[in-house]
């Protein structure tokens, strides 16, 4: 009888013990939780690692989580948008958020973040940034100003760049300018001696005396570069006291006047805004245009790989060069424009802490340098300057000189829309439909009727 009693008890104990062991062994596996974080990213050949670095960062974060004994693991799901530019992308994403289908994180042009912030779509980051100095502590302070809305920081700078007027030295030489003049242009620009009008004069000489068809070319869609010309004529677009959009009729007319003169002199093509981006680049890099108003990343993304411009610094500067945006008048201030791209986190993400840490790892100096050197964008941290790869990428070092005079687009929620109106004004002027004064009136009328709180002077 005793045996009968012991045997089932032993069997029961053994079963329980085995069950417990199996349960304990399986616990870590069962409890491990995969957190999927969705990242919205525009398909952009000029910065594939913006999203790529976040994917890589997930590996680093997961190791960190494992070391901490956390059961959570992060998986990044990239949702690519086919938008042609950051403006179209932001408009699309605002709709996506509006219908409650927004991602956990997204990549945007900095001037759009306040549009998202205004509708409560994005997470305020000041506390997180303070909490993770190892990730964010060394990011250039100037870049943070591009990530702020009136009540705080809403984004993490991902890169910066410099915008300039590239020029073709061979064409300038053919037009009769000597090397001393050509090589002194960057320095003269920085000292305020070379003016916007002189650029048109030089371009005119090139068009008249060489086979080149065009003098100055600029982007054929809405974007930041041409704002540099408006900055040169004193348009800052924001009232420093109120933060509202500011339009100054005379300064706008002066800037449009530059485009108007360019077309009248036969230097800027009347159909510049109707041409394709690639066609414009081809005209410049194959020697059919004197100047190309664009940005430093174009060297790494297009000029070197597609048009075979020399990658060696000396060889490059023998036939090519760039100047900052010249001053409007002699002795005035030259300009450059940087347009940081930023990482942003959605206000309704379920795992804000993990998203912040993930983007913190994506902002690591080595990963950011991968992006910087492969696409010729400027880095975000001083330690990147010590990376030999960064040092070897001479366009970055040379373009960094322009950061001294650089400006940002205003972080105003309505600037994206205002920029669309300004672009339409440029189209009107170049196509001969508007005079410079008409274009200034057009911008003011359109902005006053379509946007809110616009200050007109």
């Amino acid at each position, binding site marked *: 009888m005793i045996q009968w009693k012991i045997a089932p008890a032993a069997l029961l104990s053994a079963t329980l013990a085995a069950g417990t062991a199996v349960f304990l062994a399986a616990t870590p596996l069962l409890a491990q939780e995969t957190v999927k974080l969705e990242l919205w990213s525009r398909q952009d050949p000029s910065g594939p690692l913006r999203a790529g670095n976040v994917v890589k960062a997930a590996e680093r974060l997961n190791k960190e989580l494992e070391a901490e004994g956390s059961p959570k693991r992060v998986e990044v799901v990239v949702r690519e948008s086919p938008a042609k530019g950051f403006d179209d992308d932001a*408009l699309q994403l*605002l*709709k996506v*958020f*509006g*219908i409650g289908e927004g991602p956990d994180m997204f990549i945007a042009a900095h001037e759009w973040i306040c*549009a998202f912030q205004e*509708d409560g*779509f994005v997470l305020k980051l000041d506390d997180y940034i303070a909490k993770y100095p190892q990730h964010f502590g060394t990011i250039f302070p100037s870049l943070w100003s591009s990530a702020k809305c009136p009540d705080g920081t809403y984004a993490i700078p991902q890169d910066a760049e410099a915008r300039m007027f590239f020029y073709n030295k061979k064409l300038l030489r053919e037009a009769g300018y000597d090397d001393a003049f050509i090589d002194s242009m960057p320095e003269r620009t920085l000292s305020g001696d070379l003016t916007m009008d002189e650029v048109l004069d030089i371009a005119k000489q090139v068009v008249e005396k060489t086979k080149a068809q065009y003098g100055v070319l600029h982007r054929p869609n809405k974007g930041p570069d041409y704002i540099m010309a408006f900055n040169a004529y004193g348009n800052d677009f924001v009232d420093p006291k109120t933060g509202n959009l500011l339009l100054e009729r005379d300064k706008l007319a002066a800037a449009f006047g530059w485009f108007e003169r360019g077309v009248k002199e036969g230097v800027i093509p*009347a*159909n510049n*805004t*109707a041409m394709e981006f690639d066609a414009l680049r081809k005209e410049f890099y194959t020697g059919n245009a004197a100047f190309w108003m664009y940005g430093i990343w174009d060297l790494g993304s297009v000029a070197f790989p597609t048009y075979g411009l020399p990658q060696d610094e000396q060889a490059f500067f023998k036939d090519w060069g760039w100047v900052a945006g010249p001053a409007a008048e002699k002795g005035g201030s030259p300009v450059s424009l940087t347009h940081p791209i930023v990482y942003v986190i959605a206000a309704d993400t379920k795992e804000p802490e993990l998203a912040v840490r993930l983007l913190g790892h994506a902002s690591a100096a080595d990963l950011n340098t991968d992006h910087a050197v492969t696409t010729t964008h400027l880095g975000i941290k001083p330690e990147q300057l010590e990376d030999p790869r960064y040092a070897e990428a001479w366009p970055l070092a040379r373009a960094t000189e322009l950061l001294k005079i650089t400006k940002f687009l205003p972080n105003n929620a309505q600037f994206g*829309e205002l920029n*669309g109106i300004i672009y*339409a004004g440029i*189209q*009107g002027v*170049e*196509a001969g*439909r*508007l005079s410079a004064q008409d274009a200034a009136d057009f911008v003011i*009328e*359109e902005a*006053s*009727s*379509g946007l809110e709180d616009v200050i007109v002077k």
Partner: protein
Amino acid sequence: MATIADELIERRGHAASATRRRTNFVIFLGPAIVLTVLFFIVPVIIDIAVSFTDLGRSLRITAFTTEQYEKVFRTDRRLTQVIGLTFVYVFGTLAIFNVTFGLILAITTTSIRNVSGSFFRGVWLLPRMSPSVLYILLWLWAVSPTEAGLVNQILMQAFGLDAPLDLLTSAPIALIIISNGFIGASMGMIIFTAAIRGIPEQLFYAAAVDGAGTFATIRFITLPALRWPISFVTIYQTLSLLVSFEYILLLTKGGPFYDTTVYALYVYRRAFESGQYGYGAALALFLIVIGMVVALIGWRFFDMERLLQRPRIEVH
């Protein structure tokens, strides 16, 4: 008793026939009514509702307002120019291509040998059969402002033109009329051809015997028989041109500046390029109203009611 029974049977018969009528109504007209309500009436109601809101770029409504209508009537200075251009575009395309050229194509291709006629009609149908993006790509190549553009190649090599023309900048309105007209002409061509084929041949023989020349035959036999198709094509194509803008968007993007931004494209640019959906809805409502007014005017002008009447004599 017998009378009551008969009455009951009769009533039942009436009831059954009423039920059958209702069933037939649901079966035959139901799907069409559902589709019309879903795709025509509901969107108009939604559009009216949205036009009284401040629906903006993030698709959120924070207030109900008449602000959009104030903008339409008071502050939007582009609108007059846009409406004027739309009139030129619709009237130009219709008058030159969709009706006149369609008619010329139909008359010429039915007056030559059948094989040749079918061939030329086939050629003119090609633009309609091509995908719109491909069709416009061909146009972009044809009018490219460089020496490589087809038009410039012809003008420079055959006519000795010095510098290439940039038609997209210098003649954008003509371009959108021609590119739309090449497609629109084929619809008129087919309908008019069918109508011409339907004219009894003895009328042409009789006219020939009476000594009528080509133009007299067209004037007194062909054109009178085409009154209904011409009226239909005019009204249908007017409405179609008023609301379609895809070819313009692809060819000129509405530019240079606002030069080729017709009303429908203007609505699109306001709503989808600027994110002003509430304002776009208010503008679209006027397009619906304009469309209805044009349709009604056309109806009266062409006396469509009489044309749609049942023939008084049944022809077997």
